[in-house]
């Protein structure tokens, strides 16, 4: 059974067709990459799968169960979470608190007990804080826990989002351009983290423009162009696919780093 099945998904905004009849399957534990030129619909597809947008047609299944139309927080509860292309950091919190928010589903959360500030709430806070530190260590941000998130550099925030997503203990994690704007060292670190989490059995879906990163990391690659599927296969298959080469040469180079909306 696939971790994620996208079946004939289409979405329209007014007259604009953003995705048209896209289908693919992601088996558990795989690193699955979505690529395509700007405007191909990669982030839109992420938004549909993660419940941020509702698709116009089609169906999405998660571990065999239909999740079409479910809200993001309901999907998170089932074990699906994501990061964002344009950072969605909680800027008014510290780095550790950002990750602690990711622990939300696994915390006892009773507003009345929270209001009263009972000792068990404080104990739980300490526990969450410890786990948050561990996740920060995992993504290479040891010792930054108390830093206000608003004061951290871009590359660090990218990794903070990954740590925060991991805190929800997902079975599927979707990473939207995890190494955009990162230098070579940071990119290598993030690739290492992704391999590690995939190695633990987690399914990873990612969108990325850095072709070198995608080609070395992904098990399989799905190529979108103008909202439609262009090709799907292993990195070597994609690298040699004439349609993919044409689409990229016809529009923009694979390595381009523009931050335009996908």
């Amino acid at each position: 059974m696939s971790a994620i099945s996208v079946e004939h998904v289409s979405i329209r905004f007014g007259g604009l067709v953003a995705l048209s009849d896209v289908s693919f399957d992601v088996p558990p534990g795989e690193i699955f990459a979505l690529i395509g030129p700007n405007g191909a619909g990669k982030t839109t597809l992420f938004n549909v799968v993660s419940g941020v947008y509702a698709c116009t047609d089609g169906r999405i299944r998660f571990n065999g169960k239909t999740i079409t139309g479910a809200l993001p927080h309901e999907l998170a509860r089932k074990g699906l979470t994501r990061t964002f292309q344009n950072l969605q950091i909680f800027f008014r919190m510290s780095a550790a608190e950002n990750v602690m928010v990711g622990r939300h589903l696994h915390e006892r959360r009773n507003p009345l007990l929270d209001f009263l500030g009972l000792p068990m709430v404080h104990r739980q806070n300490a526990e969450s804080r410890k786990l948050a530190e561990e996740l920060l260590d995992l993504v290479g941000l040891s010792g930054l826990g108390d830093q206000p998130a608003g004061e951290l550099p871009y590359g660090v925030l990218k990794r903070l989002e990954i740590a925060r997503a991991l805190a929800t203990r997902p079975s599927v994690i979707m990473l939207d351009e995890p190494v955009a704007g990162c230098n070579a060292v940071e990119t290598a670190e993030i690739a290492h983290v992704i391999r590690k989490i995939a190695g633990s059995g987690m399914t990873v879906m990612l969108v990325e423009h850095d072709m070198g990163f995608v080609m070395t990391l992904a098990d399989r690659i799905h190529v979108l162009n103008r909202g439609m599927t262009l090709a799907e296969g292993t990195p070597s298959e994609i690298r040699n696919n004439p349609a993919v080469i044409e689409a990229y040469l016809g529009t923009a180079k694979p390595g381009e780093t523009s931050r335009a909306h996908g």
Partner: protein
Amino acid sequence: MRRILANPYAPAFALAVVVVMVPLLVPSPFYLRLATLVFINALVVVGLNLLMGYAGQISLGHAAFFAMGAYASAIGPAHLGLPTLASMLAGIVLTGVVAYGVGKPILRFKGYHLAVATLGLGVIVSIVITNEIAWTGGPDGMQVARLWIGSWRVSGVANWYWVAGITLIVAMLGAANLLSSPTGRALRAIHDSEVAAGVLGIDVARYKLLVFVISAIYAATAGAFLALFDGHVTPVTGGILRSIEFVAMAVLGGLGSILGSVLGAAVLVVLPQALTSFHEFEHAILGAILMVLMIALRRGVIPSLQSWLLRGAA
């Protein structure tokens, strides 16, 4: 310095010191009345700050909840034969229920739409209070029976000063507890990014509704206190100008700062008293002070002072 400023319980502690000190310092009970009014307003503003400053949802209608608490405490004894304490508590619970029912649809709005929707709530409540004369006495208002707790007759400024002051301290402690808990982190997450909060498993709609209800309960409690303290309540209690004043208090003191809420309430309650000597220029000066404070301390008095102090200490 940084540790003191960062301690979530410091504001409540500071206020506790003030509550104990003020009666020793002031020359007449009039100042205690002023302080009591500050506490009552601050109670609303602390709740509003949870909603606006932490969860990032605006309300231009909180005087509606304030008035519901006030009128419930008045109407229970006058028309339903209930003891004052029971009707006060019932009124607070009822206001929470109403906030839940109203919040469910209107919290789907964001930004200026939410502002208009809550403004509408305020207008509606205010019109109902003005027109249902048989129940509310209309624009001239109604008398409020005294509060008895057991054999203790809670009346006069000497009693209400302590009731309001201690309630405010408890409310501030509760707010501080809430903020450093899963619930509070969820609220603060919603403020910065609803979509990120959602993908991390936070039921955004539920938490918005939760904080809306909590802030309504704070407001209703304060409204009940004002009605019982004054012994008379009029529809101005729930007017839209009062709602806007609460927002001004929260923003002036500093959104996201509990101590700021108390200070904002203190400034806007005490300032008109201090400006009476300017006679007809009173309002112009009040407006000018509000403008200048907001321009100079644009994140609110307390957050601006805090970052200034931290910079000085570093």
